[in-house]
């Protein structure tokens, strides 16, 4: 993406846009996005969360379920455990991602493109792959289990490693966007004033990246606290809230209690929203219209240190994937380590075939195209439109919710809502459309935050100037905003694509006979005891996503060059 940042804080005068036709177009746009979010997020979630106030026959019982839930002693262990692993994972992930993004944006290390590509690998991988790798590395037969010094991987250690691996790209995406957009003039000023590197870091770099860092913290924290995939397979007896939902919903088919835990898990997202609103008030656009992109200067020692750091992180990421590839080729771990290609005959395998693989590709492509258009336009309207404060606030809240909703809850919510008798949208049930819709919703928040982070750093002056030149806002949107934000837009589309390739927890409830997905097949193959084919199909997903990413990069390089030329001096 961009190698140079730009930034500077000069308050742009707020010009009140022309009221009239243009304003109505904007409001209509906001209304459309609002209705979309109501249908895709709020209504479905209402159908399931309202069950937390009902008994199994659907009768209203007030807070009885909550009373029962909070009277369970195991709950406090779950809350405590959830907070523990979430905070630890958050600190480690955001720390690593910041260091990595810092290396990519502020140093002159070679191979930045490669490093960035490697960092995004974990989201290319279905979550089962790191789980298999961790078992092969640290399990009872593990290759390097000595590193744990007698501790078991099946517990908080395994959860934290798995979550850090999985959430690292999410955090990197946001922090990288924040660090990329900064203004060289600030650094020049700092240097001219004789500020030390350290001082510049704390007074220029950190404040500039503040919004991105805080977003990344909330995203990682919320992703970890709502994830049940990693704790379920590697967590052993270490109970967390998201696994409690799994037990209630899948283990005991008790939707009422599942809904109670689901509502409890919404709390962090609401907090994130409130905090976001508070910080947003103080955030100023960093990319003023007069900004000059920052370009790092070579500094041998600093560059070597950053190279070592990024190299280590990249090595661990690749190492975990390499073990998964090894798992796909081993004949029978750990008793017959000869390498064979049998696992790639998917059509002979249980639970999956090449058909599922093509379905996944189709689903991911639609998710990327439609999702990017909806999410970026939505973020633009929320960030850049004027007036209509409450409506915009509400829409932003709706954009934050999906992050806090565990996949199981989302999947069931979509059944309840779209399969309801008399729902005019019922025809999309059991089709690819519902899978696309559900997946966009599932990954809405991070994409929205990425778009918002990029947009926030664009000075309102752009709109002000176009407005004073009597250019309608949608022309500014198409001609200025979209081109300037092309890197973020491309990142969002690829983020949606790769997540759609690997997502399981929500779509597992929604696929039908003609819409089986490769990611679900991976899970089912492992479920049938076929670890090697599961790893093989999992790695197929990784390679596909990686190839698509590469093609995407090559095809869009031209666009990026044309639209991003302004970033170079």
């Amino acid at each position, binding site marked *: 993406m961009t190698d140079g940042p730009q930034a500077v804080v000069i308050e742009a005068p707020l010009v009140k846009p022309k009221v009239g036709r243009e304003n109505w177009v904007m409001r209509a746009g906001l209304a459309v996005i609002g209705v979309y979010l109501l249908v895709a997020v709020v209504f479905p979630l209402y159908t399931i969360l309202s069950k937390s106030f009902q008994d199994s026959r659907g009768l209203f019982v007030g807070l009885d379920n909550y009373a029962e839930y909070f009277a369970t002693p195991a709950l406090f262990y779950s809350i405590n455990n959830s907070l523990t692993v979430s905070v630890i994972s958050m600190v480690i992930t955001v720390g690593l991602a910041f260091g990595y993004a810092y290396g990519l944006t502020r140093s002159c290390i070679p191979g930045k493109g490669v490093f960035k590509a490697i960092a995004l690998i974990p989201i290319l991988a279905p979550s089962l792959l790191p789980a298999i790798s961790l078992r092969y590395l640290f399990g009872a037969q593990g290759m390097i289990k000595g590193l744990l010094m007698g501790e078991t991987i099946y517990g908080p250690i395994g959860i934290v490693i798995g979550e850090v691996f999985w959430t690292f790209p999410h955090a990197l995406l946001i922090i990288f966007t924040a660090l990329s957009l900064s203004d060289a003039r600030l650094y020049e000023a700092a240097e001219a004033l004789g500020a030390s590197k350290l001082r510049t870091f704390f007074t220029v770099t950190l404040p500039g990246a503040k919004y991105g860092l805080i977003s990344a913290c909330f995203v990682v924290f919320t992703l970890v606290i709502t994830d049940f995939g990693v704790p379920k397979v590697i967590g052993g007896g270490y109970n967390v809230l998201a696994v409690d939902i799994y037990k209630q919903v899948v283990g005991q088919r008790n939707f009422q209690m599942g809904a109670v835990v689901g509502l409890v898990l919404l709390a962090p997202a609401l907090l994130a929203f409130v905090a976001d609103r508070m910080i947003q008030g103080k955030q100023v656009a960093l990319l003023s219209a007069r900004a000059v992109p920052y370009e790092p200067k070579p500094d041998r020692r600093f560059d070597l240190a950053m190279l070592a750091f990024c190299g280590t992180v990249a090595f661990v990421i690749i190492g975990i994937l390499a073990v998964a590839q090894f798992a796909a080729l081993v*004949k*029978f771990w750990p*008793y017959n380590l000869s390498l064979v290609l049998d696992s790639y005959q998917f059509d002979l395998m*249980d639970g999956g075939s090449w058909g599922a693989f093509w379905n996944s590709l189709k689903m991911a492509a639609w998710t990327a195209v439609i999702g990017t258009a909806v999410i970026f336009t939505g973020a633009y309207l929320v960030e850049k439109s004027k007036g209509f404060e409450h409506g915009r606030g509400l829409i932003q809240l709706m954009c934050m919710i999906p992050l806090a909703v565990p996949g199981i809850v989302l999947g069931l919510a979509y059944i309840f809502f779209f399969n309801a008798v008399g729902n005019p949208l019922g025809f999309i049930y059991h089709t690819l459309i519902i899978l696309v819709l559900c997946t966009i919703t599932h990954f809405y928040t991070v994409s929205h935050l990425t778009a918002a982070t990029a947009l926030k750093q664009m000075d309102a002056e752009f709109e002000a100037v176009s407005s004073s030149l009597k250019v309608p806002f949608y022309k500014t949107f198409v001609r200025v905003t979209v081109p300037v934000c092309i890197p973020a837009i491309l990142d969002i589309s690829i983020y949606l694509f790769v997540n759609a390739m690997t997502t399981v927890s929500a779509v597992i409830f929604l696929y*039908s006979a003609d819409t089986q997905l490769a990611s679900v097949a991976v899970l089912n193959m492992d479920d049938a005891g076929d670890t090697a084919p599961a790893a093989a199909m999992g790695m197929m997903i990784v390679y596909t996503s990686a190839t698509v990413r590469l093609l995407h990069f090559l095809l869009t390089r031209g666009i990026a060059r044309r639209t991003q030329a302004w970033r170079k001096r």
Partner: protein
Amino acid sequence: MRTNLLKRLTAALAMGVFALGIGGGVAVAKTDLLVYTSIEADELAKFKNAFEKDYPDINIKWVRDSTGIMGAKLLAEKDNPRADIVYGMAATVLLQLIPYNYFQAYAPKGVEKLNPLYVDPKNNPPLWVGQRAYVAAVCYNTIEGKKANLPIPKTWKDLTKPVYKGHVIMPNPGSSGTAYLDVSSWIQMWGEEGAFKFMDALHKNISRYTHSGSKPCKLAAAGEIPIGVSFAYRVVKSKAAGAPLVLITPEEGLGWEVEAMAIVRNTKNLAAARALADWTISRKSMELHAPGYAEVALPGIPNPVKDFPDVGGKMIKNDFAWAGANKARIVKKWTARYDAKSEPRKKK
């Protein structure tokens, strides 16, 4: 009510068209039959091919997932069911759905020849018909067992001996139907007090509880743990793949579960659904059901798997209604005793 009548009319019409198609030898478009199932994935092709050979006008479309996921999906769809027939599903799941008027009664051809334990005792014609049973079992990894000097356990109570401390994995009944099968069978054999006393002792030896019922023997097959508590089919399959496992069916008795089918109330493909039900309990299909399973619904069909232990005599008199009605209470008690202390155990 009116929609109900309408649905019945449509169904009757569909049946008529179907019958005409057969009778007149007219080529009709294939009927797509949407089948929800939790049958092990590797068996799906076997059943589909055999059935479609006998009924070339019907095309089976599977939606398969684990019992937990399919059970949740079925329950979530209860107001507007989508499947035509639910197939190879744990009977306890079907029992939970029956109160919502989920299924329609049908007596498949030849149902009178089945072992009566496999046919819905409450309704005639039956709402559900069993296909086969799977039993709880213990698996023992000979290589890891030898390394740790563990004797092969023969009974459930053996598993509580101190020598097995930290060497046993079983599923968590809060997440896994298989685990509840074990727990409810122990209670039915020894009474609630005796069973919980046994589980207190067993808990001391458990390395950890898994969320999936098939996981313990998969972990044993991969050498992660010497002993797993799971069900027999998994062990048979892992052994065939090359795992050094021994299948143990403890002497005191075995919990078991019926895999059953039931036709959904609002199916638009009633004739095809009934055809599948008829075919399923035919002798030919029952033979396909047998490998690796404790018993099939039609008496007199042996298990073709070599050295599959004869478990018929060990299967307890399982009271499914009792097990279903008491599940919430027992799981809660189990969770409070063994799941609340969620601090990870240190390795011994």
